[in-house]
């Protein structure tokens, strides 16, 4: 058990390090930029923007550090950027091995297809956990360093609640990975799909007749800015994400089980 996960994790260490350092540097830039701003002036600019846009980028209380981070980092980088990243990374997991003929060797192991899939998927927990722990810690330290304060519990909660959301994105990528024969196809489909789902939620949210469509988007169930500002979140939303994640993972196992390699 878990030999494949161990091996795949060892292959992800380098990429995870680079990604974590990169995201941390971006956070540092955003936090430093906040320290240069006149918050009230920025709040005025934000108020002049159309509500749909404010909504799309999670801009609330933009003049506070919580609102600033929520808009600049968590809604944009975390929700859209990392959502796409995890869907993209997982899209290569199965399709890439099939394309390179590596799957032939892996399936000669005395291991079931569903176990192999889960073990490979589990290796994505390395970047998932590393990003949340390291970037969360870095953000907290930097906020203190510029003389601001943020409730560490709210920050930790914003990270914790992002995990089910990112798992759903990764599971969407896995389903695509199992369906496609070439990793490039699965990867492009994954990027496109997450982006469209994010757009759907952002754009359709304003049109009441079609508001139900936004329920399809995983982004609808994770709203980091309110968590950061006052720690408020819907447990139901997290439950829906967890259920969707498990459903997608089982679906990918079934599809993988049935397909010819």
């Amino acid at each position, binding site marked *: 058990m878990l030999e*494949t996960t161990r*091996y795949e994790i060892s292959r992800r260490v380098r990429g995870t390090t680079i990604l974590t350092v990169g995201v941390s540097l971006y956070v540092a830039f955003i936090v430093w930029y906040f320290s240069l701003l006149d918050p009230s002036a920025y709040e005025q600019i934000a108020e002049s923007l159309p509500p749909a846009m404010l909504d799309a980028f999670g801009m609330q209380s933009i003049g506070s550090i919580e609102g600033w981070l929520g808009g600049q980092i968590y809604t944009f980088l975390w929700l859209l950027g990392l959502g796409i990243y995890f869907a993209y990374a997982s899209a290569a997991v199965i399709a890439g091995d099939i394309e390179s003929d590596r799957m*032939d060797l892996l399936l000669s192991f005395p*291991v079931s297809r569903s176990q192999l899939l889960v073990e490979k998927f589990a290796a994505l927990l390395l970047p998932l956990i590393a990003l949340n722990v390291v970037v969360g810690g870095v953000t907290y330290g930097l906020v203190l360093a510029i003389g601001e304060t943020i409730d560490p519990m709210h920050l930790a909660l914003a990270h914790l609640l992002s995990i089910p959301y990112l798992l759903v994105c990764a599971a969407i990528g896995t389903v695509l990975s199992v369906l496609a024969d070439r990793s490039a196809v699965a990867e492009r489909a994954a990027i496109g799909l997450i982006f469209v789902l994010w757009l759907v939620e952002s754009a359709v949210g304003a049109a009441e007749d079609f508001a139900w469509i936004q329920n399809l988007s995983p982004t609808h169930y994770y709203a980091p800015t309110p968590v950061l500002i006052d720690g408020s979140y819907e447990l139901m939303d997290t439950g829906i994400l967890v259920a969707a994640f498990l459903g997608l993972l089982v679906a990918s196992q079934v599809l993988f089980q049935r397909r010819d390699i």
Partner: protein
Amino acid sequence: MSSITVDNLSKRYDDVVAVDSLSFSVERGEIFGFLGPNGAGKTTTIRTLLGLIAPSAGTATVLGADVHDEDALIEAKRRIGYLPANLGFNDEATGAEVLDYHESVKGGSRRDELLEIFTPPVERPIREYSTGNKRMLGIVQAFMHDPELVIMDEPTSGLDPLKQEEFNEFARNERDRGKTLFFSSHVLSEVRRVCDRVGILREGVLVGLEDVDTLLRQGGKRVQIQTTDEARTDLTEIDGVIDVQTFAEGIQFIYTGEYNTLLRELATHDVREIEISEPPLEDIFMHYYGSDGGVEPNQEVQSDA
């Protein structure tokens, strides 16, 4: 009990029939060669045996496990080694890392012993490997857990002649240790040297199932000679000369008779140039199994000279 039984196995892709009602069995402790030109359905059959693709009809068992039964097949895979035709290793990993991974999943009691015979540079990343080095790494992973049955798809392609010979000797030793080896090839000479029995596949149909001695008798040699007109006429009259083709200053034919007879005859003529080689596999199919392929094995050799 047979190590592999294939029973009316068919695999269709849309309109294409890759394998058509294939039946044969591989006995425990033999080296079975699965011979056929590229595209004959060898790889499809092998991948069906490993459960990578599901048969459209019929079935097969490996070490008693039905390929439709995933649990039984997983249990059997503990005792099976597999060397695919295209080796997809992670390029950035070193050979040792890949072997560590394989060892952690299926065991590696013979790893060190194998690395003395087959010598890929295990400390280097696989992207730097030549085709031959990749093949050797593949051979090591296929045998390292000391499996009862090893299924190999074109095992020697990319190996240099010296390593090919070492592989052949290794294969024979494994057989003598009681292991069963099943391998595909499109090279007749290789199969002849190593195998006890050979199944010949053509366009998805098994057209021959022979022991190697029979095949040797039937396969013949291709002889190309530059000589005089008179010699040409004489040579075509020797028993076992078939498929004669005449070209400027020479002839070419397939010879299936006694070598000494041919050599004695040649010695009485002025031979300016001679080449004796393995006949192309396609020729063998043409001449011994007919162009439609569906002929009984052990058919009498017919001379058309």
